[in-house]
């Protein structure tokens, strides 16, 4: 019986269809907000879903000289990774479908799968834009990943647990936004780096390297990668809202908190010119990582003193 329940959880709810629909809805809100901020009209509400349907129906071109197993496999693994991560986070304000001690680490690594897969996908093809894009994707991965991990560690340390649901419950009584403001800002910007949103879109800067690592992808593979990114967006927002914005315990709170975060993300996207990849790395290691590390040390010292 448990197996049936697990399969339902992965395919339909809370991961699977529900989270994919949520991801598409959030992509639309994000695009619409950025468009409005840029004095454009923006897409209609069903546009992200329509894009996916159209892409799924299209021919997938297999470029010459690639390993076809990797080429077809990587998008599936990427999407599977983020969908599995969805099982461990309090999506829609409901309790996570699965929970065990240490699931935070698992979720973080599952979320990195997407970036890793897209980097590998780029390196797998012979296309020059893809190769440069893959280098940039992986460079960016190494620059934001450590600070992003540290920002999620901060709440874990004060909550005294590595379990997402327990940190969520702890955060319910403590708005960590106010006690760990640096962590919150870095986490939000780290999420933008993870999703390669402007101004951290150097890995897919269209005016330089077309679509970066994804240049050779079309049809189904491209649709799966995009879907993966949408799911990652909603999971990332959920994690940050759960850890820093007073926890998630009901669907209404989930909506309000994640949408507020999305508004901030959209604003940041519209505000800046694209950073060069060397500037991105410099920003993360010189500012992001150091600040978070300092805050983490302060947190540990304070916790040690009070205990």
């Amino acid at each position, binding site marked *: 019986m448990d197996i049936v329940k697990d399969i339902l959880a992965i395919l339909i709810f809370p991961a699977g269809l529900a989270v994919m629909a949520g991801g598409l809805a959030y992509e639309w809100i994000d695009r619409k907000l950025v468009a409005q901020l840029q004095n454009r009209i923006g897409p209609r509400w069903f546009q992200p879903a329509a894009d996916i349907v159209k892409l799924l129906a299209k021919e997938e071109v297999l470029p010459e000289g690639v390993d076809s197993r990797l080429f077809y496999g990587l998008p599936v693994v990427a999407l599977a990774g983020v969908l599995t991560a969805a099982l461990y986070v309090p999506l829609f304000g409901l309790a996570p479908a699965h929970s065990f001690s240490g699931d935070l680490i698992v979720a973080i690594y599952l979320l990195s799968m997407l970036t890793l897969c897209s980097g590998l996908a780029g390196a797998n093809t012979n296309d020059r*834009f893809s190769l*440069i894009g893959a280098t940039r994707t992986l460079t960016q991965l190494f620059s934001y990943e450590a600070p992003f991990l540290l920002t999620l560690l901060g709440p874990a340390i004060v909550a005294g647990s590595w379990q997402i649901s327990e940190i969520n419950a702890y955060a319910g009584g403590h708005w960590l936004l106010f006690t760990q403001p640096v962590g919150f800002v870095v986490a939000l910007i780290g999420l933008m780096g993870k999703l390669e949103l402007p101004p951290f879109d150097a890995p897919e*800067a269209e005016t330089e390297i077309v679509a970066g690592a994804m240049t050779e992808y079309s049809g189904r593979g491209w649709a799966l990668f995009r879907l993966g990114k949408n799911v990652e967006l909603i999971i990332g927002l959920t994690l940050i809202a759960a850890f820093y914005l007073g926890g998630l315990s009901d669907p209404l709170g989930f909506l309000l908190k994640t949408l507020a975060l999305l508004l901030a993300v959209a604003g940041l996207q519209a505000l800046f*010119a*694209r950073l*060069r*990849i060397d500037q991105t790395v410099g920003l993360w290691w010189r500012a992001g990582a150091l600040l978070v590390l300092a805050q983490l040390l302060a947190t540990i010292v304070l916790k040690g003193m009070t205990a």
Partner: protein
Amino acid sequence: MENETREKFIIPIGPQHPALKEPGHFEFSVDGETVTGATVRLGYVHRGIEKAAEERNWVQDLYLLERICGICSHAHALAYSLGVEKLAGVTAPPRAQAIRQLVAELERVHSHLLWLGVSAHEAGFDTLFMFSWRDRETIMDVLEGLTGNRVNYSVNVLGGVKADIDDARADAIRRGIDFLEERTQHYLKIATSDETFLRRTRGVGYTSREQAEELGLVGPTARAANVARDVRVDVPYAAYTDFPVQMTLDTRGDLEARFVVRIRELFESYRVVRQILDRLPAGELTARMPRRIKEGETVSRIEAPRGELFYFIKSNGSDKPERIKVRTPSICNFAVVTGTAKGHQLADMPMILAGMDPCFSCNDR
């Protein structure tokens, strides 16, 4: 094996590439993210216009040459008209010359705003792109109201202009200019103070004054390197003697300077447009032109939005020109891309390319 490892990794940009709005081909050899060399190949939009001009009569050529460029169409028509008038010994009436200059300056405003948007897009700053293009619509509406067309205004005729300006039209232009002046202040502030934007422009694509002279740069790209070169000031044409413009110079020579020079030129254009509207000479719009142009040859130079536009016109006394040679500003400025590429990041290349405001279809004709 030795050769294989030393082989350069080349990033092709173009002929079809999202960074280019028109076809051109650039090859950047890179070492990681650092550019080690650049070559340029042009000619993808060659339409044989110069040859076609020899098959048409003087009046038809005016419309043909105006279509060399969709952005600086008036500049081409103006350079051609002034040249042909010089050959025929006819001078357009003062009112016509003033209106020609007015349209030329309005066109400069539209061209510089367009460029601002394109450059911002190359820098990944789409918000500035969208806003500057929205504001550019104001000037497009002004031009449409004045001439009937948004592009290829067709305002020139040989010996004068077609479009006249009455009080209502002048007020409409003034309103548009007032709005744009306010917006341009804002863009100048962004170009000189936005932190992320400055990181992409300050010190990038630097050319010293000597280098700029040596490469033979023209227009705003040269003026940003403190090369005092502006046909409007050096050899005033049309009504530029009556309504002179100040040359806008900058000493820094990098991309930021190119932004600042172009944006500050907008203010100069606004000022001159207002001045012309206030003191528009009365009188005829056209002078009588002969159908056949006297035998002879001439050179006509004007300052297009991108720099010096050069026309060589030769007549054999018939109703058709014997030879028309056009040299556009872009061909002079491409050297700035190949000359300064080395040592820059790959991400800077689209910015440097857009920074000189290339016009491929002008260039290839």
